[in-house]
């Protein structure tokens, strides 16, 4: 099995091919793995609804503190990078536009920047006070 040098190989590959595509691929993987971990945590938090309203509200209250408002910015960044990059590679593959992948990458980054500016504007008040006074 070839798992032995997987991290070293990943770093070597990136060093050999310092192209936009390589970095897009690398970030797609990293955000993908991160989102899978988040999905499991998200399932854990929300599954408290099975025990009823009280345990759900308690666990949801815990994850809506100012600290989590900061962490959510990273979550949303991961989601939207992975989403936009996934849409980009699908468009390039299925519409035969692989030759323009760099152009699509910069369009992707521009959309990503707009979404992140909106995200930060909306998250900052939550970072200061949390979602709800008194929680």
């Amino acid at each position, binding site marked *: *099995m*070839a*798992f032995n040098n*997987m991290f070293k190989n990943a770093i070597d590959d990136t060093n050999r091919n310092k192209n936009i595509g390589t970095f897009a691929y690398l970030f797609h*993987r990293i955000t*993908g*793995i991160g*989102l*899978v971990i988040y*999905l*499991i945590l998200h*399932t854990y938090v*929300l*599954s408290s*609804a*099975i025990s*009823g*309203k*009280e345990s*759900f*509200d308690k666990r*949801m*209250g815990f994850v*809506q503190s100012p600290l989590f408002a900061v962490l*959510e910015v990273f979550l*949303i960044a991961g*989601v939207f990078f992975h*989403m936009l990059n*996934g*849409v980009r590679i*699908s468009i390039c*593959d*299925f519409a035969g536009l692989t030759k323009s992948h760099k152009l699509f990458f910069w369009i992707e980054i521009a959309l990503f920047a707009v979404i992140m500016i*909106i*995200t930060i504007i*909306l*998250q900052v*008040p*939550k970072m200061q006070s949390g*979602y*709800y006074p008194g*929680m």
Partner: protein
Amino acid sequence: MAEKVSNQSLLTWFLQRLSGLFLAFFLFTHIDVNHFLHQGMINFGVVSERLSGSFGWKLYYFLFVPFCIFHALNGIWAILADYRPSGGFSVFTKAVFWILGLILTIIGALTLTNLFSGRG
């Protein structure tokens, strides 16, 4: 040079793309509704009020959850497959992922049912 790609690998690759495009729509809406449009605290009352009366939202979440789980586990499998795992490892990992996926889907369905019911 060209290696023969098994039909199963091709199918899972295609399903990863397909589920990904669905998720682009689902996740955009999900984040929009929960983080951008809704700026207050999210609790049981808020969620069950939104979900309990609406067939559209029920359908949305009962599609969203399995798509997410499939895309997540299939994605991790695709990463592992890049490192050419042995046959035994593949069979074992696929079995684990199917069981994990099934457990997550059941937990998701129970969670949604409770939120839809609107009962504490």
